[in-house]
């Protein structure tokens, strides 16, 4: 028994010991390539770590080419690209910044730059801009998002805007001119009625439903001269007469098709896997312009579609749209802000922006890059059309940075809007209540 015991002790001891050894081996190996802030490489070059969420496909290839060009173009810095999962990259960066372990440059959300600037999670880059002001290179509303107390904390990288996609074949079948998409809400309604096939809860084709792929907030700002829930001065503008009208208009669409029909379709393709536009069930849909890449990849070759600006409420009210995007940012307290800024400046230069846009069909933050892409020899006619439309649309595209005094306001507004769609409140009541709730929050 004793010998058996001894042998087993030995066995367990060995197992645990080897485990410990292996673990420490893992640890040792990795501490050499220590993560986080930049390090001096053996060749005297500074290594910068760059995080983004472009993990596969054309975006990843494009950014890797761009980075290797940069590394070859100079002798001071080597940029190392690290992919982080889409969406979760910001959870990770939050922890990394808090732990003092952040990378040198991160692609961040455009709408929350001010919040990170206020919390010292982003580095002030104003001194570099004072030397060489490149703010003119970007669309003005994108530049506004990177300013906190009039100083810059990031450089805009790319953006997007919402437009109307329509099925040209369906237009022809319904006797509509496929080259003349609706440009006002009234025309939109007229076209939708011509495109509708079916009734009650049995539809073969639905002309248009405003809340599919666009939020109620976008139609509200479309109606209200491009003013979102907060205006540029930071005043709360939720229950304006225009926005009430917009909500009433959306409720009419729901009544027309029936709430049950809408709910049923939302349940069927709400996961975003099946595509009702490509399948021909929906003939027109408002959506982010980057939906074009989905159409390129997933639509059958004979699928004929067009793009147009979002219809305006009435003639002259403006084809207002909404956009988002991403910025390049240096996290707080990193070691090489100067080198990092130089790399960011390179990424936002016209040629690089052009190269990235050409491969990804992202709308770039650099105005000149978008203009060049409208006639770029390597893009086809539809590609030119997309950049032409995007460039024009950005004149009427509002970006809505999260207000510092009420970062969580949108859940309050959405709850009220849902109440209106559930028939619990009228449009006016819902928006009045939302206005009051957000005012209380912002106090």
């Amino acid at each position, binding site marked *: *028994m004793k010998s058996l*015991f001894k042998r*087993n*002790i030995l066995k*367990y001891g060995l*197992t*645990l010991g080897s*485990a410990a050894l*292996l*673990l420490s081996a*893992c*640890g040792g190996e*990795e*501490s050499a*390539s*220590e*993560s*986080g802030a930049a390090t001096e490489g053996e060749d005297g070059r500074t290594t910068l*770590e760059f995080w983004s*969420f*472009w*993990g*596969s*496909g054309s*975006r*990843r290839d494009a950014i890797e080419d761009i980075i290797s060009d940069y590394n070859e173009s100079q002798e001071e810095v080597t940029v190392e690209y*690290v*992919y*982080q*999962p*889409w969406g*979760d990259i910001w*959870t*990770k960066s*939050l*922890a990394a910044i*808090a*732990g*003092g*372990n952040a990378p040198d440059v991160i692609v961040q959300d455009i709408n929350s730059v001010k919040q990170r600037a206020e919390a010292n999670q982003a580095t002030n880059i104003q001194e570099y801009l004072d030397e060489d002001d490149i703010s003119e290179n970007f669309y003005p509303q994108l530049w506004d998002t990177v300013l906190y107390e009039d100083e810059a904390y990031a450089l805009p990288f790319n953006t997007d805007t919402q437009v109307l996609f329509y099925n040209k074949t369906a237009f022809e079948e319904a006797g509509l001119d496929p080259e003349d998409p609706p440009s006002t809400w009234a025309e939109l309604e007229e076209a939708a009625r011509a495109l509708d096939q079916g009734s009650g809860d049995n539809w073969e084709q639905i002309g248009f439903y405003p809340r599919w792929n666009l939020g109620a907030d976008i139609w509200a700002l479309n109606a209200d001269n491009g003013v979102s829930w907060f205006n540029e001065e930071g005043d709360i503008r939720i229950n304006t007469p225009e926005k009430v009208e917009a909500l009433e208009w959306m409720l009419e669409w729901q009544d027309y098709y029936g709430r049950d029909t809408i709910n049923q379709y939302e349940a*069927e*393709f709400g996961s*975003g*896997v*099946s*595509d*009702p536009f*490509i*399948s021909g*069930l929906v003939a027109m849909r408002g959506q*982010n312009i*980057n*939906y074009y*890449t*989905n159409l390129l*990849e*997933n*639509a*059958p070759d004979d699928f004929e579609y067009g793009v147009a600006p979002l219809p305006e409420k009435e003639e002259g009210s403006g084809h207002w749209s909404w956009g988002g995007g991403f910025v390049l940012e240096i996290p707080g307290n990193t070691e090489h802000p100067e080198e990092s800024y130089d790399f960011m400046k390179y990424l936002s230069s016209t040629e690089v922006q052009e190269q990235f846009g050409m491969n990804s069909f992202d709308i770039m933050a650099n105005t000149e890059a978008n203009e060049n892409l409208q006639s770029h020899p390597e893009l086809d006619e539809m590609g030119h059309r997309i950049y032409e439309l995007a460039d024009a649309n950005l004149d009427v595209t509002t970006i809505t940075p999260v207000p510092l005094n009420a970062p969580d306001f949108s859940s309050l507004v959405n709850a009220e809007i849902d109440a209106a769609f559930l028939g619990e409140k009228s449009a006016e009541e819902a928006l009045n209540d939302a206005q009051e709730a957000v005012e209380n929050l912002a106090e």
Partner: protein
Amino acid sequence: MIESSKTKYVQESDSSSSTSKTKYFKSKKKQDRNGKILVYIVLILVSVLLLSPLVWMVSTSLKPMQEIVRFPPTFIPETIVWQNYVDTVQSFPFFKYMGNTLIITIFVVLGNVLSNSFIAYGFAKIEFPGKKVLFALVLATMMVPGFVTMIPQYILFTRINWVGTYLPLIVPSFFGSAFNIFLLRQFYLSINNELIEAAKIDGANHLYIWSHLMIPLTKPALITVGIMSFNGAWNDFLGPLLYITDESMYTLQIGLQSFSNQSTTQWNYLMAGATLVLIPSILLFFFAQKYFIEGMDLTGGTKG
């Protein structure tokens, strides 16, 4: 009245005759069979319900994107694209990430099974002052949500330079987890103290009793803990996301995320990858199921 009750009596005595006795048994058999059929129908329905997402995943993994986006969706792929699997494995270092995930998982399972059973043995079978308070303290850690400790834990691991290694993912599993300790302690409590007393008289110490009596006797519970830690580590996303900084050290769950982008999701590759990632879990289930039954037998034979 009387007459009718009489006839009833007669009828009843009739029914207790030998012929009707066999009838009674027959109907019981029939009843059993009907019951069984009903049970099987319910079981089949429930398993179809539980399996359908799995079937859907495999079906999506074999479709081309053009078919995936079609509405109404097709259940059985019209064109089967095995190439999806090839593309998935090639689009990121799949087998490298699988190896990485396996290393983490093996150590986590080992750590969880050894440490938790050791700690649980102490709480179940050794008397020492402050035991109850200490045990309550261990259980109290279950009440603290993971997100609350996320940032402090991250800062701690940064300070000791463990971020960027597998250590933050592996080492904590060697220090016990409240739920597993509780589970195993309950199991150990059900084992007779006499058995331990007898071993002690024979000169065994606690380490020997734990390794030679407790571990073999509680195989089913240990395998349960093992399976749970396997699944936890194999499917963990947040841990590797936070602590791994080098792309060559990523795990499968992070690699899979590369198929969902800001505007497009490559469902065909995502589902093919998910199917491949699921295979080890399914294999483990069949493999461990056998041991689970064996373990149950051992519990029956405590006398040996």
